């Protein structure tokens, strides 16, 4: 079996990719998906941690996180859709009336 710590490294890499995506992608939906990627990187870490520490908490937690992520999707999509209806665009850069 692979060294479980490598899973952690993978999780970190996924997390960074997610974070970079939030910063780089203009489309609100993609940015939001990148956030989901970050959450799932965490899930990976939880599961790996569960293995490393020999406890089950991590695995149950992954389910919690999924539920939370789902809830987030609901709220997030609602907001993004309503903005899309108004502006006919999902670019986060278009929403910059609030500044300075």
């Amino acid at each position, binding site marked *: 079996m692979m060294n479980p710590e490598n899973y952690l490294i993978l999780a970190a890499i996924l997390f960074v990719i997610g*974070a970079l995506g*939030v*910063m*780089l992608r*203009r489309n609100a939906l993609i*940015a939001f998906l990148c956030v989901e990627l970050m959450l799932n990187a965490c899930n990976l870490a939880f599961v790996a941690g569960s293995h490393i520490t020999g406890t089950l908490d991590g695995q149950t937690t992954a389910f919690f996180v999924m539920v939370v992520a789902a809830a987030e999707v609901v709220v997030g999509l609602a907001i993004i859709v309503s903005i899309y209806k108004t502006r006919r665009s999902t670019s*986060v*850069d278009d*929403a*910059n*009336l*609030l*500044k*300075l």
Partner: protein
Amino acid sequence: MILLETIAEPVAATGMFTWAWTMIAVPAVVAGLLLVAGKLSDAWGHLLATAAVFWSFAIAVCLFAEQLLAPATERAVSANLYTWFTVGQWDFQVGLLVDQLSILFAMLITGVGGLIHVYSIGYMSHDPRRRRFFAYLNLFIAAMLLLVLADNYLVLFVGWEGVGLASYLLISFWQHRPAAAAAGTKAFVMNRVGDLGMLMAISTMLAMFGSSKFTEVNAGAAGTEPMWATLIGLFLLLGACGKSAQVPLQAWLLDAMEGPTPVSALIHAATMVTAGVYLVVRSHALFEAAPIAQLAVVIVATVTLLAGAWIGTSQDDIKKVLAGSTMSQIGYMMLAAGIGPAGYAFAIFHLITHGFFKANMFLGAGSVMHGMNDDVNMRHYGGLSKAMKVTFLTFAMGYLAIIGFPFFSGYFSKDHIIEAAFADNTFIGICALIGAGITAFYMTRLMLMTFFGEERWLPGVHPHESPKVMTIPLIVLAVFSVGIGAVMNFWIQTWLEPALGIHAHELSLVPTPVGWMTMAVVALGVVAAWLVFGRSSIPVVAPATNNPVTLAGRNVLFGDQVNDFLFVTPAVALASAVDTTDAKGIDTAVDGLGRAFLGLSTQLRRLQTGYARSYALTMVVGVLLVGAVLILNLVG
């Protein structure tokens, strides 16, 4: 130094002496009353004020009589009035010391003061603010009496400043005249410079002796370190210079002639300006412990007596001539006081005779002005001896007294000083002698220009004799100018001996060699003046001249210019520099700081771009920052 022991401790006040404070209080209260009552007292204010001074005079004479009757050791009486304040180790009492010295002053002040009050009733009769004038005069009398009757330096200083205030008020009495207002301010400010000396002297006394009482200071003086004794002496001298218009603080006195003439007579001739002499004599113990300070007094006095005389020779304003003369005469007194025990009595003697004859002449000058529509320029006078007989005659008495005509009062008092000066230092003596010659010169010039020669009156001027209320004081003062010298000549030294610890000189009526010399010099001065001014007619407008001596004299030895250059200009420049620094420097710095923050804020706002992605970037920068700080902290 042993002499000090001969000074008797003052005895506590009893009987009449417990009334001494009313000498001060009555005029002070009357002054306050007249000022507060305002127009209500216009009708009778001057009478009340005059009565108040005569009350003080009466008390002074009674006290003097009591002193005469008392044995020599019990003549000095102290009357403690109340505790002014006590703080720390220091106890400041308001107390009076009526001794042989102060009683003479009290009588001079109230006597001459009373006469001048009477004179002023006439002189100021047309002035709508006469009541106010009398209030100020009474204020002056009260302050001056406090000055001479105080038993410690601090209370003396209160009187000192009080007379300064009265002087200021009276010089600028005709406030609507800019020159008068400026002259008052100038006098006060220059006196303040002298006051620094007083404050420093008193502070030093307190540090040295723990008291400013004359008795305690005198007792401790001998034990003072020479440096501090000298410093106290110099500080006191500075004070005296300010009040007595001695060089280098002389410049205010001539301007002070802007005041009504009775004021010039009372304050700027007879009494206030002699306070410096009083101060030096009163502080004799300190000066005796400080030869350098004594020397400084002598030098200042000599310079002043010559400078004053010099100014007197070239002024055309009758009052300014007299003012220069006053400076010069006070120089004589200071000289005597500076010489030491040998001169104290003569200083006071000359002070008293001068008080009478100079007041006499000033009032005479006032009488002349009264008749000449308040013109003060002697070039517009001439031949007034016929128009104003009483004034002329009384003025002549004063003239003879001041030039030292034999057996007139100045003859005694001034000759003694010149003799004492010669005894002290020949050079000083010669200076004093020359001063006497110049005195004769300028006084003769004044007499010639005013009372003799052709009439150079301006059109519309009809000289006339003044009313009785003015001439009677003149006559009284003239009598004193003539006689007081002879009366006091043999008596004054003995009288003052217990107070000042002096040894009486043998005096005789036969002139000494120095006396003969003096007479000769005086005669020379008179003749010279006659040669210059008596024979030829005097131009109505002062002729232009390049003679530096005359120019310097006309410009009061450039005292104002020196002061402007040394003090006024730098002070004005500093004041505007302060203004600039506050507004442009400090405030700009503060405002700049504020603007810097605002600028920073404007820059910072640019970071808030409105793009969600850049906010995310900011957060990631934050992540890096957190990492960096944690790592640095772990490593460090």
